[in-house]
């Protein structure tokens, strides 16, 4: 069976249509590129302004941090890591959904990825950009951050390879690089489309440069398909490896609550959980505003909700195992940690976590909830909050009361902590708004391919 026949079979087997009926190749192009080629609406301008103001806020927060020091945050001894690391893990986790949708679902030939993969991959890139800020900002001496990179130097010093923070450096830079390549390569045919359709000379020049001379010839397409698959192959392990390595930041240490082997799969599942939640948070309003319901259909929302439910259960299993192993281990320190998590000063955060990550998402069992965009959107916000709370519990609670009671302390975030965090939302949304405005947020050529398959399938 040829590849084409395989695809046709899959398309026929899928049942619910992935593209609303009545679309042909041209209408797909028109619908998607209209957003880019026409002038921006006032809604976009308003959103972009708000995001940009938050970005300015981030710059102020970073300026204060650089001039005065990490003491403006709430960290102390024993809790030497606070919001910066929580937010780092949170943002990186969010990025994993994009890579999973783009790469893994491509290799698994899941057609429903088509309308959301471009957007999700962009979201990944921007999330990684936000995340990558934090390991540099939280340093006591950020101006020598490059010492964490392996470069030949007169001191003859290389980074210390046993430290998970160095593994992080490799993991996150690899992730960022590969994600960017994958996303960019995926954009090339669409940029060419825009080049061909743009009217203003400036736009033609811009798209012309970034589309790298794509002519759409058969040879181009052959090489392109191969490259695309290869990049997907390279990206796929990253979904598992990057967050596993981020989890090693904690798992390699000796602290109760950190020193546990469940962290790699638990973190990866949590990443996908929060990533899909963020994809939903973003795509549900956007499909409404930009009238993309034909491409991002109910079926897409339904499927993403099912993925969330599945990963949510893996995360819940992780919570359960932590409780069980603490009891089973017989270690006084582990048992104290669990008692402290549940009933200590940060107990409300823990119970909030159970509510938002375990209890409320059970509504996703209901088909009505999964197909209700508003409810689904609210749930996605709840889950994202829950995942942030999870990182908060992991980082703060294990640190604030560890082995020696004499060193126990508390952690209180400061206004600068919040300002930096909200500022990264500014960075994220600024980039996102720019993306929406200047680049096609749905993959044109893949959609055209999908429409072609489903329409020819009907003809057969």
């Amino acid at each position, binding site marked *: 069976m040829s590849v084409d026949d395989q695809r046709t079979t899959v398309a026929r087997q899928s049942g619910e249509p992935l593209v609303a009926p009545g679309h042909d190749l041209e209408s797909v192009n028109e619908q998607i590129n209209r957003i880019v080629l026409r002038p921006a609406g006032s809604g976009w301008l308003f959103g972009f302004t708000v995001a940009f103001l938050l970005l300015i806020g981030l710059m102020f927060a970073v300026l204060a941090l650089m001039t*005065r*020091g*990490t*003491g403006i945050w*709430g*960290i*102390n*001894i*024993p*809790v*030497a*890591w606070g919001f910066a690391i929580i937010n780092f893990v949170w943002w990186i986790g969010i990025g994993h959904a994009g890579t999973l949708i783009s790469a893994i679902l491509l290799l698994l030939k899941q057609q429903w990825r088509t309308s959301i993969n471009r957007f999700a991959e962009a979201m990944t890139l921007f999330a990684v950009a936000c995340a990558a800020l934090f*390991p540099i900002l*939280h*340093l*006591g*001496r*950020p101006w*020598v*951050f490059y*010492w*964490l990179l392996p470069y030949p130097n007169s001191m003859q*010093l290389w*980074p*210390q390879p*046993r*430290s*998970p*923070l*160095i593994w992080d*450096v490799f993991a996150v830079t690899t992730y960022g690089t590969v994600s960017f390549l994958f996303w960019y390569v995926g954009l090339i045919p669409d940029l060419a489309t825009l080049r061909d359709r743009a009217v203003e000379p400036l736009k033609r020049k811009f798209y012309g440069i970034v589309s790298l001379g794509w002519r759409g010839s058969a040879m181009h397409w052959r090489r392109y398909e191969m490259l695309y698959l290869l990049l997907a192959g390279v990206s796929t392990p990253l979904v598992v490896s990057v967050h596993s390595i981020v989890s090693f*930041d904690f798992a*390699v*240490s*000796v*602290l109760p609550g950190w020193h546990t082997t469940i962290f790699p799969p638990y973190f990866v599942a949590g990443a996908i959980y929060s990533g899909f939640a963020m994809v939903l948070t973003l795509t549900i309003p956007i499909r409404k505003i930009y009238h993309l319901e034909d491409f991002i259909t109910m079926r897409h929302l339904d499927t993403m909700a099912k993925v969330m439910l599945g990963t949510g259960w893996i995360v819940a299993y992780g919570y359960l195992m932590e409780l069980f192993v603490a009891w089973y281990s017989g270690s*006084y*320190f582990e048992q*104290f940690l669990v008692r402290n998590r549940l009933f200590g000063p940060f107990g409300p955060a823990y119970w909030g976590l159970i509510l938002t990550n375990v209890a409320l998402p059970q509504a996703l069992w209901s088909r009505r909830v999964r197909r209700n965009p508003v409810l689904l959107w609210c749930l996605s916000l709840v889950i994202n909050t829950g995942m942030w709370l999870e990182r908060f519990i992991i980082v703060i609670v294990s*640190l604030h009361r*560890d*082995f*020696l*009671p*004499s*060193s*126990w*302390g*508390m952690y*209180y975030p400061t206004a600068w902590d919040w300002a930096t965090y909200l500022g990264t939302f500014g960075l994220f949304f600024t980039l996102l708004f720019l993306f929406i405005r200047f680049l096609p947020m749905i993959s044109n050529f893949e959609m055209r391919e999908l429409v072609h398959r489903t329409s020819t399938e009907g003809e057969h």
Partner: protein
Amino acid sequence: MKPSRIDPEAIRSRLRQAQGRDYWKTLEELTNTEEFQRWAEDEFPHRSIEWLRSPNRREALRLMAASFALAGLTGCTVQPQEQIVPYVRQPEQLVPGRPLFFATAMPICGYGLGLLVESHEGRPTKVEGNPAHPGSLGATDAFAQASVLTLYDPDRSRAVTFRNRITTWPRFLTEAAGIRERQSATGGAGLRFLLGATSSPTLAEEIRELQAAYPKALWHFYEPVGGAGARSAAVFGRRLHPIFDLTAVDVILSLDADFLASGPGCLVYSRQFADRRRVTGDIKNMNRLYVAEPALTSTGSVADHRLPIRAVDVEPLARALAREVGAAVEEAPGKPGDAQRAWIKAAAADLQRARGRSLVVAGEGQPPAVHALAYVINEALGNAGRTVRYTEPVLLNTEDYMQSLGALAEAMRQGQVDTLVIAGTNPVYTAPADLGFAEAMALVPTRIHLGLYRDETAELCQWHIPETHFLESWGDVRAYDGTVSIIQPLIKPLYDGRSIYEFLAAFTTAPDRRGYDMIRAYWRKQSGSTDFETFWRTVLHNGVVPNTQASSVAAAANAGAIPPPAPSAEIVATNVEIVFRPDPTVWDGRFANNGWLQELPKPISKLTWDNAALISPATAKALGLRDEDVVEVSYRGRSVRAPVLVMPGHADDSVTVHLGYGRRRAGSVAQGRGFDAYQLRTFDRPWFGEGVEIRKLGETYSLARTQGHHEMGRRDLVRSVTLKELLKNSASTAHEGQHPALSLYPEYAYFGYAWGMVIDQGICTGCSACVVACQAENNIPVVGKAQVLRSREMHWLRIDVYYRGEPENPDVYHQPMLCQHCERAPCEPVCPVAATVHSADGLNQMVYNRCVGTRYCSNNCPYKVRRFNFFLYSDWYTPSLYAMRNPNVTVRSRGVMEKCTFCVQRIESAKIQASKMNRRVEEGEIVTACQAACPTRAIHFGDLNNPNSAVAQMRRHQLGYQVLAELDTQPRISYLEVVRNPNSEMPEA
């Protein structure tokens, strides 16, 4: 070029005599002279040409003149040569980079503590104890360690002032001359001197000289805290000073006496006490300590049996105890209660069994009756002459401090005083509130003050002369046993200060004498030796004048002289008492501006930067109070607002307040800190009294404590065992759980040195001298209260306090916690830039210039001993503090991690010395700062690879264990189990 012919000395003296407009007129005259103009050309050759040709020539010359005056004339002066004698080498052999040590002594409350002060290039940087001094034995307390910061304190008074305007010493001499004339006419009838406590023989001589000059002038001495030893007049018939010998003591009973941590001789008593409790010593003959006190103190924390009782109940307890041992004293009716009686009975029986080898000590916070009872009890137990001996008073005062101050206040109110000279004491701040001292002082026409700071008293005086610190002046002082030490300066006076000798000399007929000459003159007479120079150099070298200890006098305590128990005179509103105690870190307030001492966590409460009203858990419950609640404490018609701290082990119905806070004029560090307990203190009963009302105000006040959790739970942190158990099981269970875990990696072989440390927890009293020593040695910054509230204090060494048992009267343990230099350090593998690595000597090293500040190492440290510079905590900008810092230790900037280095600078310099001589470093050559300061010698440091070293032997001791060994960190610090010696006959607490 022709040399300019101006005479700096002449100009200087002319300028010094001038004031205000005269000053500038004098300058103007100066600049117009030809000589000066030529000098200006010489001095500023590249400028003078343009300036002299410019139309603003006059202005330019004036500016030059001004700078000439400011820079050269009135600042540092070239003093006549005064040779100080270093401890090890002659001054000629000063090698830059190698410190010299000079023996001197620190006077505190009149008694001297012999010190060896480390001097780098002519500046004192670190204080150590003088092993040859009987009051130090090589150890120091927190106050001595922090004294170097007071020397360089930028808030110190720098200039002579008259009515708050800067003036000069010669102008004061003119005023003093005027006073001399006036007072000579009347024989000093209106002249009063008020001094702080002193034991200085030279000062005694000077006082005699002044008494001869002004026969009618009166001398007063005042210290808010102290004077306990001499409260013996009644029972002995004269004032005597007790000296204890704890080496010979088997059973000690303390009546509210914190004799291990405060009072004269406390360092020696700590050492003697510890020597009888050391697990590496003759543990079978361990001593036993009973303590009865209201609030937990260092002494109470190491007691084998502790009884929390109100201070007001100590006297009835003492009476009952006296009767138990057979002394003929009357008991207080109806007191003490049954529970206390059982305690007394058993304790008395123990004391009786140790006749002649026991000791009963009364605390300075107890009235004379209790001291008298203690002397009588010692007499009855046959201790006199054996474990306690008596000498003539070492201090110069012949009157009780309170009486002296009261007499002065009354005289001032009566208008009998026309000139008041105050030196070395701060009565406006420390006088009892009901004395009205400040108001009475305002009636005195001429008031002159000598002090280190322009404090509350200086504020009310017309003349203020800055006092020189003991590290920059000559003097002499006697230790707790009378031994004399000469105080020699380590640096020229930093500012325009004068010592008390020079100050008082102003009132004599030879006013401009130098302290150096006065001390030498006195000792030339005293030494009676033919070769005075050799004598002088020897005593300066050794730090002690031989054969000057006070000799014992025979004295019999007369039980009959003890007054009968006073019936409760007034009707009091409540039976809650208030107890006034000197603060463990700022004493009576004199150290309030010392940042190291303000930030030093108090030994039991771990409170910094504030004082609090300490109450027991039961009292707190009864009053509905919690930590940090603000209350109004009312006592005898006066009240203050204070935050509450609930302290385990505190007596019920008792509130302890620490003196020394709430200062109004002490400097920038002390400003606004704490509440002023002196506002409640009364003249007739300065130490405690019943009738306190506590009213909750509904506010809270943040208290910065460095430790908030004191329970160990099931954590195996401080191990303890009783002597009985220890002797029963010859093999202890100390080594349970201490086996090193299996590993795939080979052990690292240490062929050279392998540094290690052993800490004997049982004899740690929590005095915290080691914490300040570490801070001084390693340039550790002070972060301030706001940062301590955020848990960012920077102490590399901390003393953890743990309680076990009931909060009403728990067992207390002190555990000094510092970097354990783990063999398998969790901090090392997680640093991304290899800023923390392990040396071939076994040290966990911190490389400041490689640290990027990810703080993963701190997260992974299970002991949480690493400290991070969240801000630029080190004071980068205050010039006077540059001189104070240890040049061998990096001053850390923002964003780097730091922690204990086992004083690597000392290790390295010892290794360098040894390698120059082609030998290994010997045992005892390297002494870490904490080890050196410790009065009980609880800390031992050395080479584990040397089988004869103390640490190698102690590490193998059956009572040695490691903290958190189950994490397989393999620390290089071992702790010795705490051994307590409870009396099985004592009633259960």
